[in-house]
């Protein structure tokens, strides 16, 4: 029979195998998309389909930078990033209030989540009107404000859940120790919910990042985001696949790096035990 450590190694090996399989499955479309950014037009439309390009060349990327299209990726980052930071902060403290003090009771919490039930397409035009009046059309501030509002319900509800997971006793003991309520939030709640903060932040960013309909209507030419720019490449009489995929690569790689660096907050193995003490 196998020893304990051998069984352990087998288990780990199995897990790795499954992990690899799942990753391949999920990454295949991304691989296909990435490869397109290196293919020539003939290779993209070749029959039978080519699984890898003949030559890796970075022309598409160079063109994007030269033409200034790559700037839209930066616009998206600025807009999505700022709105994420603001939404995470305002939303988490609001979530704390909801979780610990049940502020506003069920009504407030439900009203907040109901904001996410409205089909964006239906509200895009009234928001456009509002922005015209507030002179926020085609401005960074306007779009950031919108995405913040757009994501607050998500942040609030998610963080409320994560915060409810944290034992109250910790905060109470911190209060007894002399911390002010603000310090409790900073020193206890935020660190304890780090995993949840991170998970929520990623998707808050992603929701703002992926938005098309609001960006389309609320911007014209000053604050073009990457999602809107990409649609410029789909034409009735043209399809700039190389640009589409190169832009997508430009947009995904930084997030990949960010997640890679911060994924340790998500998983077990951190010395959370020390805080719990």
């Amino acid at each position, binding site marked *: 029979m196998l020893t304990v450590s051998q069984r352990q190694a087998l288990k780990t090996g199995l*897990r790795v195998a499954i992990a690899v399989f799942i990753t391949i499955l999920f*990454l295949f479309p991304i691989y296909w998309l990435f490869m397109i950014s290196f293919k020539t037009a003939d290779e993209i439309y070749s029959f039978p389909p080519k699984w890898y390009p003949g030559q890796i060349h970075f022309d598409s990327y160079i063109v994007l930078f030269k033409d200034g299209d790559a700037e839209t990726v930066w616009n998206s980052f600025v807009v999505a990033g700022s709105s994420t930071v603001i939404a995470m902060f305002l939303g988490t403290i609001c979530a704390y209030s909801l979780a610990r003090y049940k502020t506003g009771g069920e009504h407030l919490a439900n009203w907040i989540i109901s904001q996410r039930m409205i089909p964006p397409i239906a509200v895009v035009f009234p928001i456009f009107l509002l922005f015209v009046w507030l002179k926020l059309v085609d401005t960074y501030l306007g779009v950031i404000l919108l995405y913040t509002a757009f994501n607050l319900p998500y942040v609030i509800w998610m963080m409320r859940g994560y915060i409810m997971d944290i034992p109250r006793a910790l905060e109470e003991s911190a209060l007894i120790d002399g911390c002010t309520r603000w310090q409790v939030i900073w020193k206890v709640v935020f660190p304890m919910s780090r995993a*949840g903060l991170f998970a929520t932040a990623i998707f808050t960013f992603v929701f703002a990042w992926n938005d098309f309909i609001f960006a389309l209507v609320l911007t014209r030419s000053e604050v073009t985001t990457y999602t809107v720019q990409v649609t410029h490449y789909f034409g009735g009489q043209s399809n700039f696949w190389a640009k*589409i995929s190169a832009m997508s690569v430009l947009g995904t790689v930084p997030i990949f790096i960010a997640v890679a660096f911060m994924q340790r907050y998500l998983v077990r193995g951190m010395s959370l035990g020390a805080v719990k003490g």
Partner: protein
Amino acid sequence: MRDETERLQAALLFCLLADAKVISLPDTSRADFSERNFKYLLVAPAIFVLLLVGVFPLIYLLLVSFQGITMTETATDFIGGENYAALLDDTRMWESLMHTVIFTVIALPIELVLGLAMAQLFLDKLPGRQVFIALLVLPVVVSPIVSGATWSLMFNHRFGPINQIVEFLTGNDSAILWTINPSLVYPAILAAEIWQWTPFMFLLLLAALANVDKSQLEAAAIDGAGWWRTFFRIVLPAIWPVMAIAVLIRGLDLFRLFDIVWALTKGGPGTMTETISIFTYVKGFQQFETSYTAAVALLVVVLLSIVVMLALKRVQLSR
């Protein structure tokens, strides 16, 4: 145009009044004065932003849904509940609601189970875990429009690999038209959707699982509890708040399904895969049936609110 601005100003006035109503809720805490201030202080900025951007559109929708604005008609006279009456008769609208429900009801459980399984897989140490997790987030980050277009290309019979793979596996040479064949359109859309959003559930649940009290798990292991029992008795209750909310959020988002369906089938063939968002888009954005779409949107909000309220009542979020 004149009418729009005036209407906007009237609605903003409404907002200010509504504003007052929302904040003054019964005070349920028995805390002292400063604590009460504190908790309101915490929610105030978020509520302010939400009100600023959220209330006006709703009031606008409400008002406009009782008017008769179309592409050619801009008069703002109230026409009563005509739009709502028309709504009830509109088979296409109800069908699109049904399509949306079908998508939601199929995709959500699959994404939940897959996400949970994946989270469990990556919870404990694993060589290269860092890379795996970062890679697995990528599907969500690709703009849905682009991912829809990519899947469309992949499903393409001549230029895409999927049919190639299928032929390789089954030896069958017929042209499989994923985005045209009525029996294949739903699986195709579901495949693209589940692919894109399972990582969402995966990451959220991973964070939740990571917070499960390790000591409890160790105790259960010592007691000799099997994996399933540990899961149902300890893990599930612990991650329940997060899981329930993740399901809620993902469910609401699935209800707004648009980009992927649009990229793959544009709601076709015919209107077979038309979701309520696509319907609203066509009617509101392309055909400018402003008032009618306002009524539809409000209907959707009401329906969803009822469903969510009912669901929340049955599900206990706090421990």
